[in-house]
């Protein structure tokens, strides 16, 4: 990605608009440091027992389904891999553990709440926005339903209510933004988790905790906190005893996903410089071409026909 951006800027430079690319390069250095004040959740998958109580809590909190708690004890759902749906903001999947077959790995999935979310950058009306506390939230009132956010998300998280004819919504984890806005409020899944699996807190503190855990038990943990750098960093962070690719985590580089498009956007259209230049050039061409053709009669003829 980084390579792509550099190549694009080089390309711009070749196009003799060096000044534009310089201003773009300056703009791109906006770092994600300020995001460290945001909150997130650390998921220690080595602690997860696959009880699916987080699914239950989430479904109840967001009124997605009203299945009773007992129904979540059904382990047959683990036989096929499930993924997020318009009525499932979080799902737990089971993966075989090649080292110890009796101890499969359970992984909870939901929106990772990126620090520089592609969905929010893609949304043309600002319906998706990253809040200061780290949650990436959705405002259905603004949404046009173009689903560009779904195209943009590298984790394929947002789901759509295709069956709703009049008021379909983009659906995904909200990080329980309304609950956590209150003092001491926890996301529903975190509150419900009976294990030591989900920890809610400041992202910077969660990262420290994650590395502490890895350092304290390097035999158990993979030396990788998923979400620390992926896509420029995410609010949800994962620890695992197995390589993340084995657990169907996607390999995503450290470059924030929207960098390339935003660089293109803001370098070409900065202050409308390039379009205005083009406008001026074409105006000059028009003038020269017309005078060159002795535009005495034709000027009026043109104004009528064009």
């Amino acid at each position: 990605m980084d390579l792509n951006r550099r190549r694009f800027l080089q390309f711009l430079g070749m196009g003799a608009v060096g000044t534009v690319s310089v201003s773009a390069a300056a703009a791109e250095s906006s770092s994600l440091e300020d995001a460290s004040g945001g909150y997130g959740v650390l998921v220690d998958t080595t602690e997860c027992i696959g009880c699916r109580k987080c699914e239950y809590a989430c479904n109840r909190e967001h009124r997605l389904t009203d299945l009773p708690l007992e129904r979540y004890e059904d382990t047959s759902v683990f036989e096929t891999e499930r993924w997020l749906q318009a009525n499932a903001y979080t799902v737990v999947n089971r993966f075989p553990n090649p080292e110890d077959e009796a101890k499969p790995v359970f992984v909870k999935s939901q929106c990772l709440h990126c620090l520089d979310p592609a969905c929010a950058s893609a949304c043309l009306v600002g319906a998706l926005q990253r809040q200061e506390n780290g949650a990436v939230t959705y405002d259905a009132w603004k949404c046009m339903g173009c689903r560009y956010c779904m195209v943009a998300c590298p984790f394929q998280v947002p789901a759509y209510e295709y069956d709703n004819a009049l008021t379909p919504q983009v659906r995904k984890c909200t990080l329980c933004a309304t609950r956590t806005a209150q003092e001491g409020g926890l996301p529903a899944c975190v509150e419900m988790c009976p294990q030591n699996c989900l920890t809610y807190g400041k992202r910077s503190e969660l990262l420290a905790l994650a590395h502490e855990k890895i350092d304290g038990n390097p035999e158990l943990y993979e030396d990788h906190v998923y979400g620390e750098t992926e896509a420029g960093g995410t609010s949800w962070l994962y620890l695992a005893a197995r390589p993340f690719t084995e657990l169907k985590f996607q390999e995503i580089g450290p470059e924030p996903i929207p960098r390339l498009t935003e660089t293109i956007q803001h370098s070409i259209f900065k202050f409308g410089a390039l379009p205005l230049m083009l406008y001026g050039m074409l105006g000059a061409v028009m003038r020269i071409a017309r005078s060159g053709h002795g535009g005495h009669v034709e000027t009026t003829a043109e104004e009528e026909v064009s």
Partner: protein
Amino acid sequence: MAADITYAPVQRRFFTPGVCVLLALMATAMALAVYRFIFGLESVTNLTNQYPWGLWIGVDVATGVALAAGGFTTSALAHIFHRKRFEAVVRPALLTAMLGYTFVGLGLMLDLGRYYNIWHPAWPTMWQGNSVLFEVGMCVMAYLTVLYSEFAPIVCERFIGRVNLPGRLASWNGTVDRMLRSVNGTLGRVMFLLIIAGVVLSCMHQSSLGALMLIAPYKMHALWYTPILPLLFLMSAIAVGYPMVVFESMLASRSFGRKPEMDVLTPLSAFIPIFLGIYLVTKTADLLMRDVYPLVFEGSFQSFMFLLEMGGGVVLPFAMLLSSRMRRSPRMLFSASMLVVLGVLVNRINVFLVAYRPPRAESAYIPSVAEVLITAGLIATLMLVYRVMVTLFPVLPKEHPAALPGEN
């Protein structure tokens, strides 16, 4: 070439067997569209959470915008570069662009989940300047306004001095006539500004349309995912402008039983291999620079579609149109132009649908029959409206009854 072309409404029987087929396609699509608005997207499309964009975005919107490029490319040629000999194709190209963009809007309305919010991007509190789609949306809205303003004088020309309202409204004839003259006069004075604006806006959103998919690096096939995709989109839009004008001009001539306007189309087509050549060189350089050219022969569906797009849509028509004999033959010129048009269609389908490979997708997206029928219906309706417009308004050059067989 004479600059003083006169235009006239076409006088032909409106209903032909072809028109009836178009009407049937339109009626089918309308019924399906009603169904879609009552029962939702799921009832008619094969869209999923993994494939949120389908045929309607790839064809109705993306290809629709590209194929409307005849509008700005001919207006640039005739009015900015002042090549008056091409004046004869400006009006039909303008009409096609105006209708094309109108139907892009209609197609988009069908695809949007909350279509009644389509105006939101124009509302300042919801502006989101980081979004490529925002830029596309604003440009398309602005350009549509320019296109209607460019077409308005043609409507005025039709009625000025001929306003004849029915019955009691006849007393307003003079007022309406004065209004038309004033609109026409005002537009005439600012037309040069609008013409340049149309070209600039086109360059902006044609390229931005190519930047849309750059936000999905982990889902796109490397043959199409390149940071210069916006440039390639702009180049291919420019390259398809004149082939599209040739294609529709000859189609219209045939449909109305007129002689193909080879005296304009042949010189116009001389530009096509230049633009196709530039595109070909750029695309090849891109593949070589990114070291992805081995993927062309990887034998996958994607590589097959890529070869189809480049071979059939770029290399073949490029080679054909290099020959001036081919450019003078109506049949060969028509075939080559159609290849370029189909090539851009395949390219846009490739970028928006074929190249898009989300890792979690269980099965590939294949459009439903209803999606295909609605797209076909939109195209049919566009052709019908075109036919109505050229019979009502002076869009096509006036036929010279004694015209010599201008072709050999």
